[in-house]
């Protein structure tokens, strides 16, 4: 079983970045997390990078370019098409889930309230991927 090595989180909230990084290190300290604070930053960064991330976590509620638009943009890029994207958001809604899955997200995950829950979820996702 392979474990993801590089993970990307796109979220405008710095606290969320911190929590996420902590959780990832609990799952596996070797995981490398790259954080982007906005959709535009993420797209620029992903285009520049030479290697593909193993998974992208994407927040929806972002100013200017929101998560859905980023999702569509990423799915439009040939080179990034294969990267699994997990929508990671507080606004959880069946319609949102449908829409995201329609565009091509692999999964939609609600930001949990407990750290343990987050770790469990991440473990499940990261350890199964690829």
């Amino acid at each position, binding site marked *: 079983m392979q474990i993801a090595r590089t993970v990307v989180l796109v979220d405008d909230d*710095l606290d969320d970045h911190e929590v996420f990084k902590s959780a990832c290190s609990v799952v596996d300290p070797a995981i490398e997390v790259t954080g982007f604070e906005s959709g535009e930053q993420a797209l620029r960064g992903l285009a520049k990078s030479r290697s593909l991330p193993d998974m992208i976590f994407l927040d929806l509620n972002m100013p200017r370019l929101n998560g859905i638009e980023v999702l569509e943009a990423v799915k439009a890029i040939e080179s990034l098409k294969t990267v699994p994207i997990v929508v990671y958001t507080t606004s959880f809604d069946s319609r949102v889930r449908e829409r995201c899955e329609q565009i091509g997200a692999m999964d939609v995950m609600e930001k949990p309230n407990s750290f343990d829950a987050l770790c469990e979820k991440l473990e499940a996702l990261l350890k199964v991927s690829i």
Partner: protein
Amino acid sequence: MNKRLFFIYTTVFVLTGLMLYLYRASYRDMKVFIQEVNRMSGVVVKLERLDALLHFWLNNDRVADKSVALYLAPDDAYDSILVATDYIKQIALYQEDRLRMDTIRLAVRNFQRLHERSDTMLTQMEREEFRRSLNGMVRAAFESTNRRLNHSRVRLEESTALLDQWLVWMLVLAGSLITIATFYSFNFLRQRQKAEGFSRALLEITNNGMISFQPMFSGDGILKSYRITYCNDAGLKLLNLKDWRSLTIENILPPKVIADVRKVFDSVLSQKQSQILEGYLQHGKERKWLQAMITPLHEGLFVSIYNLTPEKSYQQRLTNKINQLKVLNEELQQYAYVTSHDLQEPLRKIQMFSDIALNSPTHDDGKSKDDYFRRIQGIAAHMRELIQTLLSFTRSTDQSGKMERVDLNAILKEVVEEVDLGETRATIDSAELPEVEGSRLHLKLLFGNLLTNSIKYAKPDAPLRISISERRAHHQDYIDFPVLDQFLTYTRITVKDNGVGFQPHLSEKVFTIFQRLYNKENAQGTGIGLAICKKIVHQHNGYMYAEGAENEGASFHIYLPLQQPTGTD
């Protein structure tokens, strides 16, 4: 006419006819009587002459009547007697008299024959007897004639007496009937006058306009127009007229509605069926909504006009209020969602950090528990701030400021002086703004927040320029924004800046509480400035919306009524 009156007049007429007939009958009777009298007096005269002749003939030595004796010899007397009896026979009316004459003739002839045949002189006694019997017959003839005359006279008297009585009664009856009829007519007339007076009073008292029209035809029978034959005071007022005489329908209505009104009039006139027409008359700033009921009346039309304006205005207000409420409701729903959302986030973070601090005492990246607790405190404080902001938002338009006349130019001046420009260089120029009815305090807050917002989102490299323009709302505005009350005049104020703007599809989101279009960390303030602006505008029965383009600044358009509607709130 009254049935009773008709009956009375007919009866009087019949009575008069009857009286005339009776008069005629009695007149005839009288004619007959006179004829009889004439005849009979003729007979009497003749009988007198006969009597004289007989006397003379019988006593040829004595002169009975001077007039007779003078011209007759005794032999002539004999012939004269025969002639006289013959004549009497002819003019006698009754068989009885004729027979008497025959008897006298016979007797006289016999006597003469006797006288001629024998020489013996009749004795005095025989002559006397003969004379007596002849006298007797003539006397009898006299008497019977007289008797008959009396009889007729009595009959005539009786019938005239009866007739007199009849006539008196009929006159009395006719007289009383006519009196009654006159009395009735009088009463009838008075009642009708009372009724007319009543309806006239009604027409003058009612608030509805009452107008009657007569159609006007041209020489060749084509319907040209309608002229007013009566208009009550209320009608004059509703149509803004001084007098209705010599006015036609073209004189009282504006040209653009005449065609439609004429159509309805013509249709009511030809089909003899009522119709209702609704519309408004514009007199300067005043708009009067009217409802007219048009009914056919005799050969023309009768129109009753009801002033719908209060109802319409209430209807309008109601519709507007409903629209406003809808807008507010939507806002409220968003507001509830956003609020709960924005409050849940910090809560989640608190939980997360607490978890981390509790479960991982020593963390890999060296952070101590204290750090996390400090973070938690920070987040809790932020949450508190959010809640406070929320409260202040709900309270911000609570103290219902007194509505007064507010000079917006003065307010703008104050705001510009007080606003914190910070490090931004800014020029604010404004067109002349009108005076509106509103809450001074809140209108100041409105402009304050708008300016603050523009300053916050100014481009870092370009000097901020805010321009404020104004125009009155026109017809199209009311159509584009149905929230606006048709009965109010609005001013439309535009605040335009050359800041960073926003994407067009976010034009509604700018007003949402807490939603900031840029990073959470970068922007200061609480993110409710524009939301408060919108709330204030709503409370003033106005409407606000934003336009913008990314990097090309934003424009905020505000509709405010010059005067607040009265009484319906």
